[in-house]
């Protein structure tokens, strides 16, 4: 019993560590990737022990700056709610990771260790619930600031998030129908093997339309370009206009954490999670020859596969961000309600018909 | 009365008038270097050439008397060619060091070159070297290279001051201006040679490198150096505090007034402007501590009211100065008139002063005649001092008088201990102000409007030229403020009203206004 708790704590700590560090690295990646795409060098002036280290010290400098800046609460604001909002935001984003399976179970010392923080039967629902609760952070930030600009920004942000949640939910209904489960670990397992003999049985191949809907809606849900109207860094005033110091930093962090979460979800739902084509518990199937693999190595390969896929998604999100211009708000709403939602519904109907015909 | 036509304008002038004077009367300007209305005619610079009809050659306008029916042309080709040639000749040996020359900006060589010269220079030889930057007296710097040998300075020292220091030495191109051996230019009017020098040969040592002349603003005033009341122009700079260590007044220049000082001014008056910027009282001092006007005046008013209540107003005395304007004196007189018993007198023992027949007067106060006119010279101030020393005076208010200079330091020291309230009011610090209990900063005479009456009984106006320094206020304003504190009625609100009230009361001034006095004064 005590070992179960220790193992769960270790896994939770590992996930926590990984996500937070990746979010921190995101600031550096974001800077460097945009610079390379735009024929620039990117931030490279901060030094650590006299070394520029490709500008990595900038991330540390950012963190130091965030922590040392004045934490300002507007005179009329509710200090408790104003302080609570960023914590809520980052909390709901972090706990959602509990449902993500990042590897097959590992047999160690006669114990079967699930490489998942919490084995939830309805992990998908749980994650969506947590994502939805993130809206509270946003609304609270705008409301508790007692600023018209912040409140309007919060309204804008929550309207966008709620709208796209519908499309997001409807979009992945197809995936759920195909794999017939809400347990993400089960869903990943179901994606092992080949479809029609040559294609990995990944969601992207079985549900391509759902993938695009999911990708679009997820970008909007995480408030990233081209859907970054709530923040609109240099142009529009967002819901966290009255925040400074690390509280602002937490909203900033939430964004990156959510991006990673969405990358994890996309990997899990559409790219086979920790699956590697041809690799199974039995061994690696190399054109009919079965090469035996140590179970521990097998589990680690799964984790690495999952991590790589997540990183590729993060990279893709950044590439999209630095390529596309921002939508206008009416365009954003029209896209969500008039295009994505009907297409998602149609996708569900067609998937259902096909499923009914095939079975 | 001969009739003469100059550039088509006909005028009838007195016999003996020269063409240059006649031209001035019709408003035609003829360039000149050696000609000066206050000096004899030398006719040696040759720039004033004019074309007289039926004369074979160009004539010099300064030395050609007007004749009946004379027709003069000052703009013909012949004249301009002549002027150009003369200028080229005068400038042949000129060093052209305008950048370092204090005269540049008000130099007739520069002005006339731009107006009448503009020739292509043909002079290729080496220029003559002559002494440069030679201090020839306490006030004047000589640069013989810049001289055009107009001899104005020679004639000035010969004819006006009759000291005869200057002479032209050597011959031909080696001729140069200089002093006779063993002489120095140290007469009392030496500064005037700087004014009359049309070029930069004679420059002012006091003004040397202080400022460029185009930085200066000009305003008319009257010298307060003595009872002559010479008319002056004040040249000042307000926007360049880095010049001359922040001084505002850069120099004084005489202003032409045919009846008072003509073109001249003595050196004492010329360099008397430093009191405007040096040793000024800027803050009110209340027993050594800086105070505000309201507090200081309230304290004085309380003391006066206490005396009044005790029916002891005869223990208060006011000693104004003949340095004050008519308006200031009148305001003081009106205030003391309303406090029966208070002694107010400006009659002080005369201090020894330089005087001569030209302009300098022994009485170094500009408004002694005004004091007499306002009958403020009835009681001798020495009796007040004696009374104060013996402890009979409780409040002594001194306006602009340096008691230490007049009565000796010992007496002032004693009376400062005896008198309950010793007020000194004035623009500059002096020994007396250091003994006073209350020191009130008054505006310098260049910082206020008013009128002086000179020794000829001529009423002349001074104008506010500079902003009041620090907390200082004009004397009449201080008096008015104190009167208000005492609950006395003044009867006037502005300075013109004050003057009109004074003029109505004092017989010789009856009906006089500022407009009537004008810039040149009004004899009463």
């Amino acid at each position: 019993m005590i070992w179960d708790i220790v193992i769960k704590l270790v896994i939770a700590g590992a996930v926590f560590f990984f996500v937070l560090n990746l979010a921190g690295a995101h600031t550096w990646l974001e800077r460097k990737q945009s610079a390379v795409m735009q024929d620039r060098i990117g931030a490279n002036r901060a030094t650590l022990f006299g070394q520029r280290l490709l500008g990595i010290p900038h991330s540390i400098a950012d963190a130091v700056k965030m922590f040392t800046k004045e934490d300002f609460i507007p005179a009329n604001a509710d200090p408790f709610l104003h302080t609570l909002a960023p914590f809520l935001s980052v909390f709901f984003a972090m706990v959602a990771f509990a449902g993500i399976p990042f590897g097959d179970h590992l047999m160690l010392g006669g114990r079967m260790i699930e490489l998942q923080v919490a084995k939830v039967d309805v992990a998908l629902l749980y994650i969506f619930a947590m994502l939805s609760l993130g809206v509270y952070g946003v609304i609270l930030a705008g409301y508790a600031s007692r600023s018209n600009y912040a409140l309007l920004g919060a309204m804008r942000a929550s309207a966008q998030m709620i709208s796209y949640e519908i499309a997001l939910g409807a979009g992945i209904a197809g995936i759920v129908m195909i794999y017939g489960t809400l347990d993400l670990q089960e869903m990943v397992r179901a994606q092992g093997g080949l479809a029609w003999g040559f294609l990995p049985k990944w969601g992207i191949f079985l549900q391509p339309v759902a993938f695009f809907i999911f990708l679009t809606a997820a970008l909007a849900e995480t408030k990233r370009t081209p859907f970054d109207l709530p923040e609109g860094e240099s142009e529009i005033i967002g819901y966290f206009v009255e925040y400074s110091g690390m509280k602002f930093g937490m909203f900033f962090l939430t964004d990156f954490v959510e991006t990673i979460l969405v990358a994890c979800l996309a990997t899990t739902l559409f790219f086979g999670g920790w699956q590697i084509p041809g690799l199974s518990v039995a061994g690696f199937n190399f054109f009919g020859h079965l090469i035996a693999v140590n179970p521990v190595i097998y589990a680690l390969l799964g984790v690495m596969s999952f991590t790589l896929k997540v990183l590729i998604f993060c990279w893709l999100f950044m590439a999209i961000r630095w390529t596309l211009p921002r939508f206008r708000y009416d365009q954003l709403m029209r896209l969500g309600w008039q295009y994505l939602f009907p297409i998602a519904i149609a996708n569900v109907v067609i998937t259902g018909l096909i499923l009914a015909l095939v079975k | 009365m001969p009739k003469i036509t100059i550039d088509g304008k006909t005028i009838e002038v007195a016999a003996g008038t020269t063409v240059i004077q006649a031209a001035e009367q019709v408003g035609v300007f003829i360039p000149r270097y050696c000609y000066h209305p206050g000096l004899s005619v030398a006719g040696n610079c040759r720039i004033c050439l004019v074309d007289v009809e039926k004369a074979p050659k160009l004539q010099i306008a300064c030395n050609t008397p007007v004749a009946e029916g004379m027709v003069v042309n000052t703009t013909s080709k012949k004249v301009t060619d002549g002027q150009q040639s003369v200028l080229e000749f005068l400038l042949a040996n000129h060093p052209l060091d305008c950048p370092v020359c204090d005269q540049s900006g008000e130099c007739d060589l520069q002005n006339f070159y731009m107006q009448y010269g503009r020739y292509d220079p043909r002079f290729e030889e080496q220029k003559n070297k002559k002494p440069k930057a030679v201090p020839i007296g306490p006030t004047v710097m000589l640069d013989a290279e810049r001289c055009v040998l107009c001899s104005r300075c020679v004639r000035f020292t010969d004819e006006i001051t009759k000291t005869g220091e200057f002479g032209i030495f050597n011959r031909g191109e080696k001729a140069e201006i200089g002093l006779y051996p063993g002489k120095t230019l140290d007469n009392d009017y030496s500064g005037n040679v700087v004014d009359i020098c049309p070029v930069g040969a004679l420059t002012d040592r006091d003004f040397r490198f202080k400022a460029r002349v185009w930085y200066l603003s000009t305003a008319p005033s009257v010298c307060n150096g003595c009872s002559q009341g010479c008319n002056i122009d004040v040249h000042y700079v307000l926007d360049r505090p880095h010049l001359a260590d922040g001084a505002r007044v850069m120099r004084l220049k005489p202003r032409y007034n045919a009846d008072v000082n003509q073109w001249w001014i003595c050196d004492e008056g010329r360099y008397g402007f430093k009191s405007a910027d040096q040793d000024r009282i800027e803050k009110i001092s209340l027993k050594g501590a800086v105070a505000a006007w309201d507090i200081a005046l309230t304290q004085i008013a309380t003391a006066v009211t206490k005396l009044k209540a005790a029916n002891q107003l005869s223990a208060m005395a006011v000693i104004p100065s003949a340095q004050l304007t008519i308006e200031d004196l009148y305001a003081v007189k009106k205030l003391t008139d309303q406090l029966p018993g208070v002694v107010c007198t400006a009659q002080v023992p005369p201090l020894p002063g330089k005087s001569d027949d030209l302009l300098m007067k022994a009485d170094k106060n500009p408004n002694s005649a005004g004091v007499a006119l306002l009958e403020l010279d009835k009681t001798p101030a020495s009796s007040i001092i004696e009374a104060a020393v013996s402890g009979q005076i409780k409040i002594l208010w001194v306006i602009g008088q340096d008691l230490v200079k007049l009565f000796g330091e010992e007496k002032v020291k004693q009376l400062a201990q005896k008198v309950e309230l010793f007020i000194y009011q004035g623009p500059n610090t002096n020994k007396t102000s250091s003994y006073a209990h209350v020191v009130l900063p008054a505006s310098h005479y260049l910082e206020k409007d008013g009128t002086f009456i000179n020794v000829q009984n001529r009423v002349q106006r001074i104008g506010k030229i500079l902003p009041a320094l620090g907390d200082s206020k004009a004397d009449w304003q201080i008096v008015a403020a104190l009167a208000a504190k005492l609950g006395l009625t003044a009867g006037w609100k502005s300075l013109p009203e004050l003057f009109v009230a004074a003029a109505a009361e004092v017989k010789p001034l009856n009906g006089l206004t500022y407009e009537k006095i004008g810039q040149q004064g009004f004899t009463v």
Partner: protein
Amino acid sequence: MAIRKRELTFWEKLYLPQIFSGLKLTMKHFFVNLFIHMAHRLGLMKNSSAAVTIQYPEERRWLAPRLRTRHRLMLREEGTPRCVGCMMCETICPAKCITIVAGEHPDPNVEKYPTRFDIDLGKCVYCGYCVEACPEDAIRMDTQILDIAAYSRDAMKLDMHELLNPTLRKPLKECELKFPHKCAIHDGKITGSWDAVYGKGPKKSNQFESETPSH
């Protein structure tokens, strides 16, 4: 006039093709630049740059020689300033950033020289009028120094030290200039000596008392 918008075709309305073409462009830049960056790390392809930006201050743009940059005061051959303190530059200066105080020069053929010559670069508009007004070629704006920044307004003021020596931005500890002048960093005390320039010996005094008029 009404502006008529062009109807989008179905293909354009889909967005996706346009998104992909945009991504294609940015990806091309990304991978090409990434490749060059990596090659630079390995010491290869030094001639081709992965960025169009200039890495200031290590790299600098070429400046035209006639560009008006920070001022300097010129020196005569013997090392004294050319400036004679005529204040032409101070007069013409539209920003009123030049302050000159003139003094008596021991050589009567020079006569005048600046005891104080300050330029407030915080006010200067770099119009170059001072250079054109100067009759002595004493001031030039050809130092090519552009990066003039300071932490206070006072530090933007150049005194004669810094103007005579264009490489000098920070005040000197010891004044090495060979002429007396009121020096802001020495509390206005006069340092240096004319003797270093003109040699020791009886100099023409400016005191009237010891002067005899010459003819």
